[in-house]
Each structure stands twice: as C-alpha cells, then as structure tokens.
C-alpha cells in the first residue's frame, strides 16, 4: 500500500501528500502511532484527512499509510451487549488493554476474533443462494437469534456448509459463484459505513412502535420504521425520553448512539441496562442493545462517524428481519462535528457556520430508516421477510431556538415531532412534551392497528382529549384576563378535565417503577375513565349538582392514582367507573358512596 507524508496539521484535520491511488472515504493510518483517519477531500495529490484520535504531536513529514479500504464496520455475532466508540472500537476491550483513560493509537477489532459461536446451517450444499439469503443461525444470546446472511453482492451455489462452532472469521460455508469461483462465507461481514445496505423494497409502516410513554403512544405515536425527533433545550428531557424508548419499546434490537453527549449518561446506561428486565423477553435489556458511545470529550471526527457506524449496524439487524430502533443523542452534536471539520477544510459556510450540505446529510441519514422487505429469499412458509429501523434523533438547539438550522433541516424529513418545553420541565411536568405544538403524521396509519388491537374507541377518545386540551389553551387566556368565574360551568368542567388529562395522563414519571411503562390497553382505559368523569360531571351539573361538589368527589382521588395500577389490576377500572356513576349521578351500584347529585339536593 502507498505511503504519503503529512504537510499540515490543524486540530483533527491533517493534510497529506503522496496519496495518489487512495480514494475518498478511504481509511488511512496517520503518523508513527498509526492513528485512524479517513480521507474526506482530495485536491491534486493532497488528501485532507479527518483523524479519529487526538492529533497532538503530529507534524509535517510524519507518514500516512493508505489501507485501500473505506471506513467500515464489522457485522456479525458479538455486536449485542457491546459498547463501541464512534468508529467501532470496543471500549471495554480498550479499557482492558490500556486502563481507565483512552490512549491514542490503540485499537481492537469490532468483533472478538477468539470467541467461538455455535453455527447451525439452514441450507445445504447444492442450494442456490443470493445476497441476503439466510444460510444459518447463531443463538447470540437468549434473546436474539443472529441470522447469518449471504453478503448482498454475492450469489451462487453452496459448495459446502457445516454446522459447528466457529470464530467469526472461520469459513462456515463455501459458495461457488456463477463464474465458477469458490468463495468462503464467514459469519462476519464488513460494510462501509457511509453506504446504505440494500433491501428489496420499501414498504409502508402501519404498526406502532409502542414505547409505554403515554403522551407518545396515544397522542404522538411513531411507527416501526418511522422517524421522529425530540428537540428541546437542556434539561427538558431529551435523554430521559430516549432512554425510556430504549428501555420499554417493543423493538427487538436497540442501537443507542451517544453522540457528543455526557460520559456519565453512557455509564448510566451501562450500569442500568444489564439490571433492567425487558418486559417482552424477560431478560436483561442489555441483551438486545448495542451502544455506540462517542462522548463530547472524545475526538470530534469519530463523533461525525458515530451515527453512520450506528445506522449501518441497525441496517444489518433489519436485514435479518428484526425491528430495530436507533436513537441518536444528539444529532446537533453530530452536525457540529460536521461544522468543525468543514471549518477546518475552509469550506464556504452556510447558516450559522454549518456546511451547506447539512440538510442533505441529515436527510440521507434519516432516509436509512424505514420498513423494508429484506433482501433474500422468502422464508419456508412463503412469508416475506420484513425488517424495520425506527430512528429517534434528539436535537439540542442553541438557546432552545427552534428556528436554528439543525432543527429546521430535521423537521423537513421527520414525521414525528416531540417538542420539549422548558417551561413544562420547570413545573416538573414530565415528559415535558408540549401537546400543543408536537405532531405525528403517523396517526392515521396506526389507527387500524389500534382499532383491532386496543379498542375501536381509542382514536376518538384520543381526539376528544386533544380537543379538550386545545380548548383549555384558548380558555386559559380568558381565565388569565378575567378569572375562572367568567367561564360557564361547562367550560369550568372542561378546564378541570384538561387538568386531569395533563396531570394524570400526560405526566409520567420515568423514575417510578409503577409509572414508567403503560400498555396501550391501560392508556385507553385511563382515557376512557377520564372522559367518563367528564361526561358524568356535565350531566350531574345539568341536574343541579354544585361544581364544588363534583370536583371534590372522592373518586377523583382514584382517577389520579389509576396510572399506577399496572396491567395486573386492570379490572380496577370497572370499579372506578362504577364509583363515578355512583358519586356523580347516583346510578352506580355502591349505595354507601353518596352521590354528589344527591348532595346537591340536600
């Protein structure tokens, strides 16, 4: 391989000459320590290289070695439960090699070369296979079956294949291509991160990604294969919301990219996920998770690469037929990494110094999400293999200003907008997702699923509640100006119901075990209960009950606590409903609970 020489060093950017045969996005080794770098610009024989490690101590004349290959990730058994940096160096392995602090020039492969996996062949010699076909499986851990696929560009006839224990680089099979060449197939594939992995076709996504967070699932749902963003000023709850989704969503695989964020947050995930139990599999959450941790103090170029590393891994699991959720926290830090590199390249800046291609890069990244029919043969039963990637990106707008370029460019491509509001956070209304400005364009898509899996009324209940909240906002203005008394009784009831929706439905404490996860069924029942009270309150008032008595009906306490009931106690909702009837209109079963209406007659 050719060798060039450094001519310039400016922070994370190094310029070298003499790299004539190398291509854009090729990986190179910089300096005597062989630091990892990637070619990001070529002018004549000068290559600009972004270096993934600290460049201190590099100077003109130092060597740069070409590798002839683009920056790639290793895909295969062993990714789950790993923690990688932005260029897939396994951080736990690095810690064992060099201790608590990251040292330059030290690297280790993304997949363990020693570890042996139990490979079970699912095709036989003589079978015709092509890209994406599954040739065997490895039970990577109790939760995930790792499906070994033919790399996308390969096709031919299986020459030989044997079940057994192998390392990721051993040949588990040989393929005879149409040109008669025999190529080994290993469990590991290598794929360039900046290139999307192919699929057969995109399909429409209609199944919700349920997160257990009520404001998301009911009001602003995302589908499996959907894209959403969470912008908000610091402290509004981006990270907690993302962690909630990583923990409780019904995706099968979770890729969490800590992109330029706090070190302690990654530690938090690392300590908590192995302890927490996945509600779907009953196993530790970590078993379905891959972490990419390139924290804010780690090299900025590797931060730029981290989202590509993450999404390529996500595509690989999607190709196996899994539903993957990828979280990028935060895309703003990624954009800033681009800006920093672009500045060093002395490119012409666009808005706020971001490169002019910011929008294109963001769109291309989110475009890698979606639900697809996977490449490869259909399964034995004739079912088409589908997989999906849902992407949830947090955005950290400076000063919380949503008109800034990263938010604006993101909003052009995402379909769900969870707007976090610091005012809500100050009031400790969590999740601080603003119900008036947030939106989901998937609402109509998930309604059929809701109808058949939750209840026929779920959608209309949701819409009614939304309308109440909207109306509350209008009325709040009047209340501010002239006081609550200016409202009609019915309006006052509406204000009270809106408050209940806010406090007893929308608010959800991520740190309370009996509150952090709510099933769709429970969400629907809770709405149903709140709306029942609302209707009965209006009736009771029409029949002469005083508002004060209605609002102090003892059943309200039960409604407030309903969210803590949990799936096991779903039957309680019936008894709450009965209490509502009894206490408001006197028609319920419970004699001892005096009806407010009756009270009104006293």
């Amino acid at each position, binding site marked *: 391989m050719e060798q060039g020489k450094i001519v310039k060093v400016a922070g994370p950017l190094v310029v070298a000459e003499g790299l004539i045969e190398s291509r854009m996005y090729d990986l190179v080794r910089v300096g005597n320590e062989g630091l990892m770098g990637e070619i990001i610009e070529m002018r004549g024989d000068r290559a600009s290289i972004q270096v993934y490690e600290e460049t201190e101590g590099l100077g003109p004349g130092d060597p740069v070695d070409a590798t002839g290959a683009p920056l790639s990730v290793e895909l295969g058994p062993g990714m789950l439960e790993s923690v990688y940096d932005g260029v897939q160096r396994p951080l736990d392995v690095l810690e064992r090699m060099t201790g608590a602090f990251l040292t330059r020039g030290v690297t280790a492969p993304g997949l363990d070369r020693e570890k042996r996996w139990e490979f079970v062949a699912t095709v036989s010699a003589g079978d015709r296979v092509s890209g994406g076909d599954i040739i065997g499986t490895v039970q990577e851990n109790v939760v995930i079956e790792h499906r070994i696929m033919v790399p996308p560009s390969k096709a031919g006839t299986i020459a030989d294949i044997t079940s057994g224990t192998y390392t990721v680089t051993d040949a588990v099979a040989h393929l005879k291509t149409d040109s008669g060449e025999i190529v080994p197939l290993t469990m590991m594939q290598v794929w360039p991160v900046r290139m999307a992995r192919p699929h057969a076709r995109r399909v429409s996504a209609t199944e919700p990604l349920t997160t257990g967070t009520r404001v998301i699932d009911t009001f602003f749902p995302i589908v499996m294969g959907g894209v959403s963003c969470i912008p908000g000023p610091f402290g509004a709850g981006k990270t907690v919301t993302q962690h909630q989704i990583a923990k409780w969503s019904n995706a099968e695989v979770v890729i969490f990219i800590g992109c330029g964020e706090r070190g302690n947050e990654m530690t938090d995930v690392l300590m908590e996920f192995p302890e927490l139990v996945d509600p779907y599999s009953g196993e530790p959450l970590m078993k379905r998770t891959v972490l990419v941790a390139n924290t804010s103090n780690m090299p*900025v170029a590797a931060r730029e690469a981290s989202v590509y590393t993450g999404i390529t891994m996500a595509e690989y699991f999607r190709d196996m037929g899994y539903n993957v959720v990828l979280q990028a926290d935060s895309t703003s830090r990624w954009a800033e990494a681009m800006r920093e590199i672009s500045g060093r390249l002395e490119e012409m800046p666009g808005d706020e110094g971001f490169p002019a291609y910011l929008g294109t890069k963001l769109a291309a990244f989110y475009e890698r999400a979606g639900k697809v029919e996977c490449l490869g043969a259909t399964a034995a039963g004739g079912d088409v293999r589908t997989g999906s990637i849902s992407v949830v990106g947090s955005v950290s707008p400076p000063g919380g200003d949503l008109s800034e370029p990263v938010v604006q460019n993101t909003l052009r491509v995402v379909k769900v907008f969870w707007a976090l509001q610091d005012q809500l956070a100050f009031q400790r209304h969590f999740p601080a997702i603003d119900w008036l400005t947030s939106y989901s364009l998937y609402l109509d898509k998930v309604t059929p699923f809701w109808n058949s899996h939750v209840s026929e009324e779920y959608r209309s209940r949701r819409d009614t509640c939304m309308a109440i909240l909207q109306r509350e906002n209008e009325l709040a203005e009047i209340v501010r100006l002239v006081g609550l008394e200016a409202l009609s009784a019915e309006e006052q009831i509406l204000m009270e119901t809106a408050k209940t929706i806010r406090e007893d439905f929308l608010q959800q404490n991520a740190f309370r075990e009996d509150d952090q996860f709510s099933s769709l069924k429970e969400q629907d029942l809770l709405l149903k209960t709140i709306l029942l009270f609302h209707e009965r309150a209006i009736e009771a008032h029409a029949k002469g009950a005083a508002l004060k008595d209605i609002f102090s009906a003892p059943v309200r306490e039960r409604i407030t606590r309903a969210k803590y009931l949990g799936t096991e106690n779903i039957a309680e909702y019936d008894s709450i409903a009965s209490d509502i009837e009894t206490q408001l209109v006197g028609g319920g079963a419970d004699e001892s609970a005096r009806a407010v209406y009756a009270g009104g007659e006293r």
Partner: protein
Amino acid sequence: MREYMTTRDIVGPLLLIESVTDVTYGELVELEYPDGTKSLGNVLEVNGDVALVQAFEGTRGSNPSGTKAKFLGRSLELGVSRDMLGRVFDGLGRPNDGGPEIIPDKRLSIYGSPINPTARDFPDDFIQTGVSAIDGLNPLVRGQKLPIFSGSGLPHNELAAQIARQAAVLARSAQADVVGEKLEGEFAVVFAAMGITFEDADFFTQEFRTTSAIERAVLFLNLADDPAVERIATPRMALTAAEYLAYECDMHVLVILTDMTYYCEALREVSAARKEVPGRRGYPGYLYTDLATIYERAGRVKGRAGSITQVPILSMPDDDKTHPIPDLTGYITEGQIILDRNLHRRGIYPPVAVLPSLSRLKQKGIGPGKTREDHADLSNQLFGAYARGLQAKELAVILGEAALSDSDKAFVAFADAFEDRFIRQGKHEERTVAETLALGWELVSLLPRSEIKRIKDEYVDKYMPTETEA
C-alpha cells in the same frame, strides 16, 4: 533545541513563524521578545514549514524581527505533587505565593485524556452542602459537574465559598428513615480563577485561610489584569492537579472554576485572530467541544478511591440563559444552579431560582441509605407546590388576591414561606439534610392534604408534622 528568529506576522495573540522544521501540533514554545519579556505559547497549526503559535502571555513587547521562538518538543505540562496542597500558583501553574518551586512527582500534559466511558463509575454519593436550596431540591453528587449560572453583582462567590467550606459526605445509613452521619475532612479543593478581579480572588483566598481550608486547597490564579490567553490553560492546569490528587492520591476533590465566561472570551479572542468562521455571537463553532474537554474531566473512575466534583461558575451576559456560554455549558454539565436577580433584590440569600435549576443526578444521590426515603417525593412536592404558588401569584397580580380560589391562596402562602424560610439562609448557616427535610415538611404542612399528590401516603403519615393548631 530548535530556535528560530523567523517570525513573520504577529496578529493579536498569534505569531506566524516560518522556516521551522520538525514542529508538531500542540507543541510548547518559549517566546522571547526584543524587550526581554518571555512568554509561553503552543502550536495551533503547522503547515509545511510554517507554524501558527498562540502566545499565552501576550505579545506586548514583541516584534517580528526580534522575536526568538524555541520549540520545546513537548506539550504544556504541569509538574504535580502532593505538596501542591496549600499553595498558590499563577494561571500557568508557576508558584506565585513566594514559596519554593514544587518538586514534581510527575509531569503531566495539561490536556489529559478522556475517561473511557466503560471505566466510569456512576456518581451516586450525596454531598451535603448545608444549603437547603441545593441539598433539598437540587442535590450535588460526588463526581458531578454542577455549575452556578450567575450574573454580575450576584453572590455566586459567597455561595461557592460556602459550598467549599461546608461540603461533606454522609456515611451510608442502614435505616431508610435516618440520615447518615457527616464524615469530616473529606474534600480537597482545587480553585481556578480566570479573569476575575483581585478582590474576588482575595475573597476566596481569605475565605480559605480563615477556615484553614487552605491546607487542603490548591489555587491557580489568572486575574483580570493577567494575560487573557493564559486563561485557556488555567482550568486545564487545575484539572490536571485535581486528577492527580483524585486518582493517584485517592482524594475527593472539589474543583471550582471561575469565571468560565472570561475563559470563553479568551477562546473567542484567539478564534477571531485566526479569522475562523464564527458560530453564535462570535464564539467559535468548537466552543461546545472545547468546554466538554474541561467539564467532562469531572467524575469517578472504577477502582479508584478519589473523585472530581466540579462547580464551575459563569456569569451570564445580560442574565441571559440562552447566551452560548451558559447554553453550551448546560448541555454538557449535569444540571445547573441558577441565581436570580429578583430574589437577590428582595434580600434573599442564596438567591437560587429553584424552578429552572436542576441536578440531573439527584435521583441517584438521594433516597434511603443515602439521605432519606422521603427525600425524592418531598422535593417533587416542594417543586410542584412552589411552581403552582408562583403561577397563582402572577394571577393575583392581574386579577387581585380576591380572585384567587382558596387552594390558590394556600399555594401563594406556601410560596412566600418557601422563599423566606427554605431558600433563605445565612451565609454561615449550615443546615444538615435532616434539618432541610424537616423544614420542607413544615412547609408542606401548609398545604391542604388533598393537594399533596406527589408524596406517597405512607411518608405523609410518617413525616408530616402533627397539627400545630392554627
């Protein structure tokens, strides 16, 4: 030794030096100007045989033709040793208290290395600061970075000094309803001043002296009339010393950095001189990354006894929280304590604006064993009730007190009492966390029982003070 007299341009704090060989990025440079003054500098960029050098101690007295530049083949380092405790240094780590040079145990690059995220230990030990507004609502945790967002004229120095003086760790308690004992003498303090006035710095030195905390303190002082660019090195000097004390001498170190705003201005000055494309308000686009390399040096490391807790102070220009310095800081640190001019005007010390303040690690640092079982619920309730009280007060301003409902009136009374009794406290008043919690319960008891929604019933029954007849 490579020595050059080939300086071509001098622009602000930057020198362009030609015909150099073997210069590396980040290398330390010793500059000698024609008038005999000297300055340290480092290489910001090297392009072929041209080096761009930033002079830490200014370029006054320099002149292209007469300036001598010596490239030292290493980066800026700090000689560290336990003997640094009790000593005062300048912004570049040279003794300025008249005492002897430090005989270093080691020389460490001031830039440090990032902690591997897998090697971090999660901060979860409560630090009792003795300040109710912090301990009760936004507690500080060992290994956390919790800045104070302040403004000119606000008592951030007093508060920082009070924290440094009172900070203590509690022993783990075996009972969920009993707070552990205070452990004495746990902290060493590393104090870095960047661009603050002599008086402010003197306040801290006196403060440390009178409480004899000085024996456990290391001070790095870059004052308002010291070279601005030197400030870029000062916090890194301090953190290098802190890392040594924490990870090699097993100490718990509290690092106070003040004022981060002047630090950022120095960065901006260099960036402007380099004609870099500016980000918001003229600050360089890499300000976030740069600040992260400072703040992220707080933490705990698995298998090491010591820890680094950071309390950076920054003054918000125009009290504006959306200014890039507080904004980017808030995105990196684990919360913020915000001081409020209104409370200050009303004579409330410490004027902590409770609602927008936040400690992100509080969930981990409080609760049974660490403080007390009811702590989290109680603080949620206090927050909620105070927020509601402030809202009701706003309403009262427009509509008059009479328009408020009975429950709103109760919340208004709560909010006033909360500010007056809970937030307000003496500069030398140290409240144990048990006292803070007791105070919180007294205030909660002002609320109608039906409004106490955020506290588990069992805690209400257990901790609520019994009726003191109205």
